């Protein structure tokens, strides 16, 4: 394992400690690691001394990092090792114009010119042509085959994304998902802005994961600036992350029930989602928890009054959550719709590297709260999932179990007496020079990870963001194989992936 350096979640290491391998050796190391039940957390390129380097962050039950110098191209691992590298390699090609050779499906990810100023790998001329909307999609040929294109403008108020179905009658043979319409250039912008803007921008990476992404950002700054977070602030952060999880899971269960035209739970869940968002408002004055987490602690102290408000609301609402979940999950027409719809096998999920509830519903137990605990999670009980068949029913059940687990966690946390000494304000702090820090948190969708590299003067050299959706969109595409096209909205909602979190 000389080729890998073991790192810890949220602990900065010197960049000099990252191995710098030859491209061949780098590829072999990654291949070897991933083939032995390893997963990719981050895999990206950055500029260094006029050239470029690749950096990979890997996990099994520990975290590892490794890197290599890279020229204009490197051998792709997607085809001969694992599908896990697929999107990462496309991203590297698009961001830095470095070609992964022999990549089986080398396409644009987000439609932007590369940062390095090299010739575009895909031959696009972004100055003079309208590129988004020009897709070469995988095509199935045949007389009975028809193609259905959906989006990027959809019938509902949802984010833009293009879905191309190859169908034989009602049966979907293949689905290709093309995103990138919400690309805002987050990664390019983050190293250039003042430090105090970082949390604000990270809160906007994916609007429904404001706390998850911001927590990753703040932990990274804390690691680089050597800040300590007191127990009271950790308590508030953990509660906020769990409230975000509950609110989103409830909203999605409601949407799932609405998609199968089972209206009562849709209405009840919709209201309860609002109740939990309001609890975030109790904590920090914002329903999505924006402005709560800041480097060094939290910007709002949780007083006795807030604790009481949260406990009272939980007492009132927890039986309701249970009842409405029972209403949804015991309706046999709902079960008939959920069961066996959109299945992904455990092997497939492991090959794709699915994370979060999408992975857990397939039997991949990985939960960043357990594997790489931050904040208070080290002292809290784990959750286990009963239903792991990989279908819509499993994904819905996992969410239900997580809601119940999160409610129990919040109750446990509220029993603890610690309070924050004082609210922290955003300040500019010197960051450790020539360092690497990787932070991982279990956002409500799954593993959210940020990776920050600093230069010799302590400025940010590269800020890499990864939303769990980056792994899971392919899972949705695989779910639809040989399913009815009319089940697409249901499958889609059971994942409910982020467009803007992917598009950055």
């Amino acid at each position, binding site marked *: 394992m000389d080729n890998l350096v073991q790192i810890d979640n949220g602990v900065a290491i010197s960049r000099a400690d990252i191995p710098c391998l030859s491209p061949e050796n780098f590829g072999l190391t990654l291949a070897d690691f991933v083939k032995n039940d390893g997963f990719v957390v981050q895999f990206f390129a950055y500029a260094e001394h006029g050239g470029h380097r690749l950096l990979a962050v890997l996990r099994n039950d520990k975290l590892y990092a490794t890197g290599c110098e890279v020229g204009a191209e490197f051998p792709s691992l997607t085809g001969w090792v694992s599908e896990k590298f697929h999107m990462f390699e496309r991203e590297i090609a698009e961001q830095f114009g470095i070609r992964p050779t022999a990549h089986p499906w080398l396409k644009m990810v987000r439609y932007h010119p590369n940062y390095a100023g090299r010739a575009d790998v895909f031959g696009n001329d972004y100055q003079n042509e309208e590129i988004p909307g020009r897709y070469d999609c995988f095509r199935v040929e045949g007389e009975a085959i028809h193609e259905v294109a959906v989006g990027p403008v959809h019938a509902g108020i949802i984010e833009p994304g293009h879905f191309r179905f190859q169908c034989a009658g*009602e049966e979907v043979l293949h689905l290709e998902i093309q995103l990138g319409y919400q690309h805002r250039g987050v990664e390019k912008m983050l190293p250039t802005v003042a430090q105090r803007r970082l949390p604000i921008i990270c809160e906007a990476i994916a609007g429904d994961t404001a706390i998850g992404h911001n927590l990753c950002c703040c932990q990274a700054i804390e690691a680089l600036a050597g800040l300590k977070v007191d127990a009271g602030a950790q308590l508030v952060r953990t509660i906020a992350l769990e409230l975000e999880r509950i609110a989103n899971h409830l909203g999605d269960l409601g949407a799932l029930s609405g998609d199968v*035209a*089972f*209206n009562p739970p849709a209405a009840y869940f919709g209201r309860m989602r609002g109740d939990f968002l309001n609890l975030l408002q109790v904590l920090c004055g914002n329903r999505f928890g924006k402005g709560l987490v800041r480097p060094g602690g939290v910007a709002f102290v949780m007083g006795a009054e807030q604790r009481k408000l949260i406990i009272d609301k939980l007492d009132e609402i927890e039986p309701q959550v249970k009842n409405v979940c029972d209403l949804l999950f015991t*309706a046999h027409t709902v079960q008939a719709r959920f069961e066996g719809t959109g299945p992904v096998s455990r092997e497939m999920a492991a090959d794709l590297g699915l994370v979060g509830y999408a992975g857990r519903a397939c039997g991949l137990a990985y939960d960043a709260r357990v594997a790489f605990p931050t904040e208070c999670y080290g002292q809290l009980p784990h959750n286990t999932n009963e239903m792991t068949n990989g279908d819509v029913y499993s994904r819905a059940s996992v969410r239900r179990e997580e809601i119940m687990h999160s409610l129990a966690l919040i109750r446990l946390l509220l029993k603890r007496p610690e309070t924050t000494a004082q609210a922290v304000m955003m300040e500019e702090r010197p960051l450790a020079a020539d360092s690497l820090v990787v932070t991982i948190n279990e956002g409500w969708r799954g593993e959210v990870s940020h990776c920050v590299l600093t230069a010799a003067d302590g400025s940010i050299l590269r800020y890499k963001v990864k939303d769990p959706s980056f792994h899971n969109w392919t899972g949705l595409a695989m779910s639809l194989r040989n399913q009815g096209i009319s*089940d*697409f*909205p249901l499958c889609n909602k059971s994942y409910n992936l982020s467009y803007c979190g992917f598009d950055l």
Partner: protein
Amino acid sequence: MESILSCTLALLLAPLFPGVINKTKAFVASKKGPPLLMKYYTLAKLLRKGSVYSTSSSFVFKMGPTVSFAAAAMPLFFIPLAGLPPLFSFQGDVIVLFYIMGIGRFFTIVAALDTASPFEGMGAAREAFFSMLAEATIFAVLILFYRMNGSLSLAEYFHGDKAVSLTGPAGALLLFVIVAMFMVLLTENSRVPVDDPQTHLELTMIHEVMILDHSGPDLALIELGAFFKLFFYSAFITHLLQPLTSFGALANALIFYGVLTLVYVAVGVTESTMARFKMNLVPKYILTSFTLVFFAAILTMGFLQ
């Protein structure tokens, strides 16, 4: 004269009753729901608008709404309402009527295909397939009714001395018909569990997806036609449910519209307590209704001779 009034009343009230369904659904979901007169507001709004036509669609697309509206309105002139005889009636009118409704559907489908949208084609394929299956049930009902009262006219089924009735000699068989026709009602009018009138998801819709490209007055005609169609099927079931009408005109009207409201409430309750079927289960569901009626028809062979 009374028949004309009664028919006009039915045409005017048809958009009211879908409001009853929505109110029922809202009640079960503890919501306030849209106002009872919502459908009138929607129609008024649509009629004030202009229509938008794609340059790639032809006259077929413009014909669709008009023909389907006319086809949906016609049966209301032939069905007895509120204990009064219908405006028109002749021997064999049921067969004509169901095929006229078929013509309406045909034009909706070709209008949908005319847009060349991949969604509308899918919706059209589903609608054609499912309504073809529902036709089997409807004609099994007609066979059964023919054996029961020897006529092929809506007027004679539901009005006069020979009317089929639960209290009649083979009344018990009508229980099968009521259940089967309710299932057909849900199918033909794109209700849960076959279709979801509230969904906006173009990949799962059946009827709604076919009318995505229609706008303004065209859409109003389609909507109004859908209300008439639902009213016709509900009135059909109401006649089977209600006791024989032999009270005063006012009492008859009250009983008729009371039972009719209950049918709509039943639709609302069904939609609130059931999820949609998977698309591949829908044919089984429709054929179940056929089986019920066919079984009833077999029973008539025994003891009605």
